[in-house]
């Protein structure tokens, strides 16, 4: 027989004003298994807690129901008090007779009776409670940062500066990401490379950072504090240790007509190349798809000229394993490309703009390269088709974005600002030119942002037209842009020399593959989902994985950097202890009855369930069963509710506990269909009285 103590709180008058607390206590005494029941003015006060502790010792209670406010209010308080009295804290439950009863009902018989029943439900539950111990998890104090753009760089540096080792994995040959491609940044117009390059160098030389460029995450196993990561180092064909980065190979490479990714096709590169002068590491890589040796079997020009003997055509992809405790995902974005065959097959193109195939229709990043001093034109704004200076440039915003019929409904957030910046950069370089901007709304909240847009209009004379463009076609030397200005209500036709499309900010194409490996969820556009949009914006639902930057949604540089530092801080909180304690409200499998149908495994949002093989002593497989990793399980109980044979249960909310609560809803003594006029079944205290 259980020995449960029931402690009914008056909460000053908050409860006792409408609930007869004394009667609740007396009724509770009558419940089977209740060894002690009392009421008190303030249970949460020190004397109230002392009362509970005393009763636990005196009556050797094996369970406690505090009947007072919401558990969200004081569950921790009372569990701690119970623990101090030597009882396992999970043997204490609360019956919420304040928020769910006294505050929401009038002073009536039914209200007190409800309170009694709520206590009864909880007593029945507590009878089935068992002592639970917090789950301890070891923490490997090394971090993995995926993505070497400004977000990844910031996160890696912060963690490394905090004294922890960081593995930074970047898929491209150099770190830097999109920020390295930018000319200047809004709203200060400072040079992007000037502020980024020092950070790139820091990453390359930091003693705590292990940099894997031209590498990808191949596999991830484990859980928070204990991830095992397999990294694929793609074959560079260059021995990075021998290479001095002198660049001779680039000069001699005969394959020179490959559109440069870094310059977004506005300039060509060679097959062996350093992506851009400030690259970190400043080491070349051979693009095997275009290399003459790799495609035709002959050439080896680079090998011949390399003074360091660093060219290695035999290099193969290499796989390394690293153990880490926390992961920062900073895989960034790419721009939606206008056209039928973009990298985003789910989204249609823009046939009415000729699919953007006209060389003088470019995107925002291409414009950045044109405006960049280190870009293909040395910073001169020249149109790609013939190198002439464009005298009128039309900027189109919301291309792809806010375009439900093209499948993308979100606002790309940064376009309004960078387009304003583009008009300024243009005007600063082409004084007699005019910039036109077609916009639907100007979204410029942020410190100094709206002022910046106003400056573009007021000082640099950008002509802002509120409307979209229906068609762009070439007419001789010009592009005809047919748009509308909804403010005047008129159709607008502009003869443009160049058109810049502010295309949607999209996640890296194919990034969902990585997200699936990580077990993190993503939205319909493949942006990673945060654990909570307000309160846990840098965490993933999967413990130990954090987000930084535009992989989560469109973000500008300050936001990316701030979030990266936030993620780094989360990682360091994780690393601040040798061991993590986790709530023991976790699922548990009954291996005897589990039939390995794997429903639980599929519905678990946290990948906390894995397949386990049970073998006999000789190693023969007896059966497979589901196994819950308590370090990963967060206790939602979806597995338990899904399991047909009820072979998984959730500690703290076991089937037996819930069953007992439901069972306590009805007592034999209750007359469920009373005759008219007859009093309803008396509650136990009335019988006693």
């Amino acid at each position, binding site marked *: 027989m259980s020995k449960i103590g029931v402690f009914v709180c008056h909460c000053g008058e908050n409860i006792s004003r409408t609930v007869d607390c004394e009667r609740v206590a007396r009724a509770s005494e009558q419940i089977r298994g209740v060894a002690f029941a009392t009421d008190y003015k303030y249970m949460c006060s020190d004397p109230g807690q002392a009362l509970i502790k005393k009763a636990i010792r005196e009556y050797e209670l094996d369970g406690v129901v505090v009947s007072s406010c919401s558990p969200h209010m004081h569950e921790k308080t009372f569990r701690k008090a119970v623990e101090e009295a030597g009882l396992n804290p999970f043997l204490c439950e609360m019956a919420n007779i304040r928020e769910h009863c006294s505050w929401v009902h009038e002073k009536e018989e039914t209200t007190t009776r409800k309170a009694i029943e709520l206590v009864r439900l909880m007593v029945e539950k507590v009878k089935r409670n068992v002592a639970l111990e917090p789950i301890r998890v070891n923490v490997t104090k090394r971090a993995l940062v995926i993505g070497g753009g400004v977000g990844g760089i910031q996160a890696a540096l912060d963690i490394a500066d905090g004294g922890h080792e960081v593995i930074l994995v970047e898929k491209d040959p150099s770190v830097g990401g999109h920020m390295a491609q930018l000319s200047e940044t809004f709203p200060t117009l400072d040079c992007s490379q000037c502020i980024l390059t020092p950070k790139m160098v820091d990453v390359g030389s930091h003693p705590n950072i292990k940099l894997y460029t031209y590498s990808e995450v191949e596999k991830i196993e484990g859980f928070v504090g204990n991830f095992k990561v397999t990294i694929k180092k793609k074959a560079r064909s260059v021995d990075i240790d021998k290479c001095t980065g002198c660049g001779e190979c680039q000069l001699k490479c005969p394959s020179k007509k490959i559109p440069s990714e870094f310059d977004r096709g506005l300039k060509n590169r060679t097959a062996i190349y350093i992506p851009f002068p400030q690259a970190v590491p400043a080491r070349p890589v051979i693009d095997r798809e275009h290399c003459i040796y790799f495609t035709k079997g002959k050439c080896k020009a680079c090998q011949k000229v390399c003074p360091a003997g660093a060219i290695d055509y035999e290099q193969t992809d290499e796989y390394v394993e690293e153990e880490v405790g926390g992961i920062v995902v900073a895989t960034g974005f790419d721009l939606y490309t206008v056209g039928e065959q973009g990298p985003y097959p789910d989204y249609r193109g823009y046939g009415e703009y000729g699919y953007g195939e006209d060389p003088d229709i470019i995107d925002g990043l291409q414009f950045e390269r044109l405006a960049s001093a280190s870009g293909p034109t040395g910073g001169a704004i020249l149109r790609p088709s013939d190198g002439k200076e464009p005298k009128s440039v039309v900027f189109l915003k919301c291309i792809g974005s806010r375009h439900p019929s093209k499948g993308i409904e979100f606002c790309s957030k940064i376009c309004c600002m960078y387009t304003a910046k583009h008009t300024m950069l243009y005007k600063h370089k082409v004084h007699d030119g005019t910039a036109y901007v077609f916009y639907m709304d100007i979204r410029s909240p942020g410190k100094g942002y709206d002022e910046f847009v106003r400056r573009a209009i007021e000082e640099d004379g950008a002509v802002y037209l509120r409307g979209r463009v229906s068609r762009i076609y070439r007419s001789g030397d010009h592009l005809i842009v047919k748009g509308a200005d909804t403010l005047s209500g008129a159709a607008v036709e502009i003869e443009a020399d160049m058109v810049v499309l502010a295309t949607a900010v999209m996640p890296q194409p194919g990034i969902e593959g990585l997200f699936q490996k990580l077990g993190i969820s993503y939205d319909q556009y493949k942006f990673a989902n945060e654990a909570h949009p307000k309160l846990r914006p840098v965490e993933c639902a999967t413990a130990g994985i954090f987000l930084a930057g535009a992989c989560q949604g469109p973000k500008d540089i300050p936001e990316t950097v701030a979030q990266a530092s936030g993620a780094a801080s989360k990682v360091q909180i994780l690393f601040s202890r040798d061991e993590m304690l986790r709530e023991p409200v976790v699922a548990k499998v009954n291996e005897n009855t589990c039939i390995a149908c794997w*429903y639980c495994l*599929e519905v678990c949002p946290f990948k906390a369930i894995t397949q386990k093989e049970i073998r006999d002593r000789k190693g023969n497989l007896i059966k*497979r069963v589901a196994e819950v990793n308590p370090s990963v399980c967060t206790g939602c109980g979806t597995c338990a509710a899904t399991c047909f044979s*009820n*072979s998984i249960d959730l500690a703290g909310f076991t*089937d037996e506990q819930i*069953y007992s609560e439901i069972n306590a809803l009805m007592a034999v003594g209750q007359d469920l269909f009373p005759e008219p006029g007859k009093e309803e079944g008396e509650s136990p205290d009335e019988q006693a009285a």
Partner: protein
Amino acid sequence: MSDRTEGIREIARKWLGDGTVEAVVGWEQGTYKDKTSPVLIRTPEEADRLLFNERCTNNLMTYLKREPVRGMEKVGIVAKGCDIKALIGLLQESQVEREKVKVIAVTCPGVKKDDGTVPVKCRACDVNTPTFYDEIVGEKVDSSPEPGARFEGLEALDAMTPAERFRFWRGELDKCIRCYACRQVCPLCICSRCIAEKNQPQWVETSPHPRGNFSWNLVRAYHLAGRCVECEACETACPVNIPLMLLNRAMARTVKGAFDYEAGKDPETQPPLRAFNLDDDNSFIL
């Protein structure tokens, strides 16, 4: 039909002879009227007992989940298209390994019930010629599912008021004697411990009184939602003639309508209660 019988025997002889399988599960002539009975054939000599005819109503897949077949390394099984749907269900739920089961599919123009009528599953059949097997016997039979046949019983039920429906089911389910023939014969009732056998806590009362019967039949239908392949084994087995398929088909209709899913079609898909879509119907949730 006889060529199908010969075809089955031939393959069984071959597989048993060359050790491809340890045993073959098939049908043999029963001893009562014209019924057939499931049989486990272990030697090539015994293969001549196997047969196929329009009275081969049993779904043999139920034997894959029970001893001795469950323990075998390799087993052959004779199956109609409808039976193979159950196999697909078992594969989806990892209850059997594809390599372990060798299927002798048999094309089937339809079977007949004990009273000589054609079951709904045959009238609605879309797998007269199976497409998932290791070997197939019999001439190709084109499928021409009767439109509406599958859900025809539901229309009468739909037409009732809820109160009438409740009375109808109360009458039917009161008859239940909890023999569990429905569960035992079902190829997809895969639990080694049925929820009805769990007594700590006892969610489903085992007593064959109206309340226990209601819970049991409700839970059975729920646990088969999106999984039931409509082989009708349960309804055929029920000794008190409860129209169990009405419940199963109602669930099939829901699952088809809500999740565009049909059980037993594709081993690669996720059963509907093992997955979700962000844009699943939300209209009924206030």
